[in-house]
């Protein structure tokens, strides 16, 4: 029973992974902006399912809340407000594209080299582990929401609180910069 569940789980992971890839491809290649957004939504939902298959239920919920909820709505607003039809005729490759591609390839090569030397050369150290004290007394595999809450409210309390102030400042800033002209 256990074994067959695990097999189904890994198959499901593959299925959802392919669905996510399909969604991403739709997003990139769709002609209409609305189709792109729907593709994006599909991709995000499939990714959330992938997280569920991996047993990370908190990450899956956060993924749906943030991406499928917030970001997609934001995109739809932009699609509705901005008239996209006038950008259709633009050429896909611009003059600086080769430079950009070259830079990206060089940067990627440099970082792959760094990680290769660090983790795969003959005397590589043991694999990375998260701080074990963060998850003391918790079964991380089954209780990762609790483990995250412990990290947020115990070990990373100060950054968490600073983050709330940052969000408040962002709100104030948006109001300051966008408020109507005084007459």
């Amino acid at each position, binding site marked *: 029973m256990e074994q067959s569940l695990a097999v189904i789980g890994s198959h499901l992971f593959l299925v959802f992974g392919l669905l996510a890839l399909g969604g991403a491809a739709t997003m990139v290649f769709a002609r209409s902006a609305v189709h792109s957004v729907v593709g994006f939504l599909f991709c995000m939902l499939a990714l959330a399912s992938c997280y569920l298959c991996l047993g990370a239920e908190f990450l899956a919920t956060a993924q749906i809340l943030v991406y499928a909820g917030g970001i997609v709505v934001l995109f739809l607003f932009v699609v509705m407000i901005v008239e996209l039809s006038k950008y259709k005729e633009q050429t896909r490759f611009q003059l600086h594209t080769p430079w950009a591609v070259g830079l990206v390839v060089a940067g990627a090569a440099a970082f792959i080299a760094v990680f290769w030397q660090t983790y795969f050369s003959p005397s590589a150290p043991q694999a*990375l582990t998260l701080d074990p004290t963060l998850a003391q007394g918790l079964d991380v595999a089954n209780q990762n929401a609790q483990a995250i809450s412990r990290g947020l409210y*115990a070990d990373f*309390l100060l950054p968490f609180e600073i983050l709330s102030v940052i969000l408040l400042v*962002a709100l104030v*800033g948006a109001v300051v910069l966008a408020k109507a002209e005084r007459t």
Partner: protein
Amino acid sequence: MPFAQQLWQAMLRDLPLISGPLTLFFAATIMLWPGDLLLPSNKKHIWAPITLGVLAVSAALVANTANGSGFSSMFQVDGFTRGFQLLCTAAAFITVVLSQPQLNALQEQTVEYYALILFSLGGMQLLVGATDLVSVYFSVELMALCIYILVAYLRTQERSIEAGVKYFLLGAFSSGILLYGISLLFAAGGGVTTNLLQLNQKLALATHNNSLLVFAGVLMVLVGFAFKVAAVPFHMWSPDAYEGAPTPITAYLSMAPKAAALAAFLRVFGTGLASVHSDWSAPLGFIAAASMILGNVAALRQQSIKRMLAYSSIAHVGYMLLGVLSKDPLGGARAVWLYLLTYLLMQSGAFAVIIHLQGTGEGERLDDFRGLARRRPMLAFAMMVFMLSLAGIPPLLGFFSKFYLFMLAIQQGQYLLTTIALLTSAVAATYYLGVVNLMYFKEPTGVQLPRLGTALALTVGCTCGLVLVGTCFGPWLLDWAQTITWF
């Protein structure tokens, strides 16, 4: 003991450490709501005295906070923290005073302006005491976000918006680099800690394999911080932001965030990355030398005094990086603190003069200083004192701190960099003396200037007096610098 109870007790124990920033956050939030709602719209000018009061309370709390470390050793109060916190608070205080003429003239007396200054100061106060890369990063972001908005505050002026957008984009980019560097260092230390002291030990033991990872991480963190303090070659945003921002905010930019970012620079590199000093000493030396040379040479050609001061502040950062480079981090911190203290006095005085001239539509261009000595002899004299002090001419206060800093660099054996610093100081004297030349030996062109407002007169008078006689109090200043300690 239940988990929640443990949390509660740890929080009660640690909260007094951040009483200063907490006061700022609470006061700013209450000012925004419901304060602004309750205040009639013709009484908005009283936000300035209220803000000054909040700043004074926060400074008193900061000065009386006992030493200690808390929040899972993410924040630490020690002499270093207190010294830099007070420096930033003083800069914010002066900024609020300097803001009055312009805000009144533009009828922009709004509570958001003061709230953003308080929030940014809270970020700085947290930043200088941060002892963990995670809390360093978040405090930097809080500080920077407020400053982006303040730079773009005059949203009807294209220049101000352009400056804000430029600063925001480059700042966001540099934060990304900083964060990536932090994550690489976290991985290189074995992926168990971001605490500076522990990370220092882990990095010292990093295997040969990890050396490239450490180097990449250190370099990216260095780039991130160089962006924040506007050191060459990561200074591009600085002249535009200085020129486009409202002038009091320009003064603020050149004092407070710079002091806070340098403090974080000192603590991160002095305690967290001290064991890999050889990885960052050469790149940082290059950045320091480039800042001194490019900052001073570019300042020669500027026509706008705000741009000139922007380039000159790049050069001053170059000098202060000599302190960061020091192999004795605490000695470097003391020298940098002293330098920032004197820089604060000179810079706030000089900006007070510029703001006064700006009130009559002048002061932007260097030519506006033509013949100022005939029109306002006292003002011109004060400006001369500030310029000479910025140039480091003895016996003014600017010379004293510069001497202390350069002496430290020589003791550390940085002969080449100190030579560059001395030579570029001579170049700097050219453009500082150029302003004096304009004021004293050129024919006046402008109209008669109005009287100096009380607040500006007080700022100019106090800072000018302190810069003039400050060197006499040298021994006391040095004693004061000795209170800058960490443990």
